[in-house]
């Protein structure tokens, strides 16, 4: 007979976890099997031992310590909540004040005003100068073209989308080795 099949049922029987019919079947098997008798006996003995030890009293000081810690924590809790509420209120007030006093940045206005450029010619310029930033020199070139189209007597043109700029734009004049080539870099006063 393969007693491994009986092991689970015998272990359950040792703790009274089988139905009466199942328990009877286990008892019948155990009566015929010495090995399973030993197993059942050992299970009952170890269960009795651990139950008895488990039932032994625990020092009252341990319970008292837990109670004291819990009550101390609960007594501290309301005060801590009020402290938290005050702290939160103060922080909120400070935040409102800070936002109110924060210096507001002025609206940036981008100047795209074009200024006349006397003359721009190509070729012969110092390579270092020609390899400069692509944006502004192109604009200068466009400006020069526009100026050539408009003729010398006309006033400088401004881009339609640009708002009026109160400050004077900064004009950077780049000289090249070729005296006929001069590059103008026009920026706003804020360096844009």
């Amino acid at each position: 007979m393969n007693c491994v099949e009986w092991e689970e049922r015998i272990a359950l029987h040792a703790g009274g976890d089988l139905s009466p019919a199942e328990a009877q079947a286990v008892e019948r098997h155990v009566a015929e099997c010495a090995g399973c008798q030993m197993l059942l006996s050992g299970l009952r003995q170890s269960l009795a031992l651990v139950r008895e030890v488990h039932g032994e009293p625990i020092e009252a000081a341990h319970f008292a310590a837990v109670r004291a810690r819990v009550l101390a924590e609960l007594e501290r809790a309301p005060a801590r909540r009020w402290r938290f509420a005050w702290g939160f209120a103060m922080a909120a007030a400070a935040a409102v004040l800070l936002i109110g006093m924060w210096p507001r940045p002025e609206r940036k206005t981008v100047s795209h005003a074009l200024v006349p450029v006397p003359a721009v010619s190509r070729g012969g310029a110092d390579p270092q100068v020609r390899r400069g930033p692509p944006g502004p020199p192109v604009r200068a070139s466009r400006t020069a073209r526009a100026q050539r189209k408009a003729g010398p007597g006309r006033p400088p043109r401004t881009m339609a989308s640009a708002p009026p700029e109160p400050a004077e734009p900064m004009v950077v004049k780049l000289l090249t080795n070729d005296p006929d080539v001069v590059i103008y870099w026009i920026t706003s006063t804020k360096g844009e």
Partner: protein
Amino acid sequence: MAQTMDGPDARTRAGDLTGFEAVMRQHERLVLVTALRLLGNIEDAKDVSQEVFLRLYRNLGKVEAEKNYPAWLYRVTVNLCHDVGRKRRPSVAVEDVPELVSGAADPQQTLTGAERQRVLQMSLRALSEKERAALVLRDLEGLSTEEVARALGSSEATVRSQISKARVKMRDFVERYFRRRV
């Protein structure tokens, strides 16, 4: 449930700490001893007990609605012990448990109180976390299989399997401990 206890009265629900202390006294053994068996260490068990009662205080209304304080307390205690246990030692294999030097023949007669406690704690350490919880609640705390299943969030069939394995391992441990191998 083995113990049926009334919930806290209205004073406790209102936050009266004296009333809550009475509730703690009613249930402290359940919580501390269960935690001690699951963790094997009185200081950890006290920490868990403290947390269980703080949670009970915060959930008094909900627990009272369940009308079963022990079930709630067992469930929370087991869960907190699992959290603590996972951060600590793994279970010990039965084969790795040292034998008792004295080779006492009858464990019930010859062991001192400290040795008996040691045998219990070491035998529990030989079990897996789930087997230990099932055995502690069923065999030591005396809950029914159905109550154990509810506390552990498992099926009754699973709990029966865990309990039977745990009992066999515990018997193996005790017999090895006393050099009484079959």
